[in-house]
């Protein structure tokens, strides 16, 4: 162990940025493994509305109402950490940013949308 790292402050709720610099979600929850055998580590990042269910009462209610997706990103896909979590692949490859993709189809119908 080098120095202590606070997952709650340093990773949870931070933005996800894909390999092309696109913002594609938040670290809505974390999946840990090896907690029982005394060697805990982060297995995956959970993102998407369904992941809110692990975030207290408000999260549970909202997750039930929105009923969106849950995307699991194995920790091995993480390229680096600063104020954001940088991913090795593009949002598309990881199945992220679909809400923006859908909204883009709508916005693109308005003239001048590429300005």
């Amino acid at each position, binding site marked *: 162990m080098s120095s202590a790292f606070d997952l709650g402050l340093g990773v*949870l709720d931070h933005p996800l940025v894909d390999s092309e610099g*696109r913002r594609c979600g938040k670290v809505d929850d974390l999946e840990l493994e090896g907690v029982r055998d005394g060697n805990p580590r982060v297995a995956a990042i959970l993102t998407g509305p369904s992941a809110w269910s692990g975030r207290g009462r408000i999260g549970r209610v909202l997750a039930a109402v929105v009923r969106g997706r849950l995307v699991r990103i194995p920790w091995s896909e993480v390229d680096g950490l600063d*104020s*954001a979590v940088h991913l090795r692949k593009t949002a598309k490859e990881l199945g992220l940013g679909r809400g923006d993709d859908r909204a883009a189809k709508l916005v693109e119908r308005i003239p001048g949308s590429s300005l």
Partner: protein
Amino acid sequence: VKSVFSIALGILAAIGGFVDIGDIVFNVAAGATFGYQLLWAVVVGVGGIITYAEMCGRVAAVSGAAVFDAVRERLGFGVGLIALVAAELVNLLTIAAEIGGVAIVLQLLSGLPYRLLLVLAVLALALVLWLMPFQWIERVFGYCGLALLVFAVAAIKLHPDWGAVAHGFVPSTGSGNGWVYAYFVVGLVGAAMIPYEVYFYSSGAVEEQWTAKDLGVNRANVLVGYSLGGVLSFALMISAGALLLPQGIQAELLGTVALVAEAPLGQIGLILALVGALAAISGAAIDSSFSGAYSIAQFFGWEWGKYRHNSGAPRFTLAWMVMLVLGFLIVVTGVDPILVTELSVIFSVVALPLTYVPILLVANDRAYMGRYANGRFANLAGGFYLLVVFVIAVAAVPLLLLSNMGQG
């Protein structure tokens, strides 16, 4: 490397962009009711916005995180969501007030019916938001807002009792109705510290891709820009105090505000006042619409930013459109925009602690900020203003009721 010239241009825009309908309404009403006695409250408010905007700008430059990134990281999903909802509700009131204000000024300029002008105003604002690049928006409205400096000339021409003006910078309990006085203190501090300004400022810093190299620009922008913006507030209060108070005129309409410049300076004063108010309030309508979109996009991790074209940050684009439409729907009911303005300022005060606490925490986090974390002075000022914000947040709604919305 940015030239001194471009830094100066940025500061000029910040001065013109400081004043919005909340500042105009509260400063003129305070001047008309209490003369110069409340000038100190503007100083307190300006100090607060300088303190927190500097922190937000620094966090954005060093880490790339904007305000609602920090809010969610520090408050977590649940409490963060409460902060978001509170911020958006207040923001909506602000947008409604600004759209209403734009329509009133247009009405004073053109004489056309108010509701028609509301429609025209919201369409024009949407067009500007859709078409204009980020820097242009900031600059054009900021520069035209400088026409409000006509109130500084008006203040001098009205020959106020400068001794009394100087006295107004010393905090006092004031004479007259105590509840109304306290209500104006909260309103003036709240109007200066209105939260959409820091959301917009920090997001703008991320949009312009500031780095630690821009920290000097950040400091110059907030210190000089907001201080001189405060001078505009002083000018509004002083000229209202010199003209309206002796004649017992209550400043309930924006028309009264224009009168304050017209009386000493004639037609040209009137026109400059209206043009300045139009630019400042339109700019604020745009900033607050963007702020609402920035906040929700940052909270949920959507792509955001005006620097991407409209379809490059589509949910962000839809968000500001929805904000603008909802704000329009509030004022088109015919509710008095001045009433909405006062409510937006008072409720923004209630919501302030929810955004300032996480910012102070992040700005202190060395893991995040490294050697750019808050120094002793920033923490002293930050702590002081957190206290101020908590006190006025608790007092805001009771004072709204006890003072009968400042009517006494």
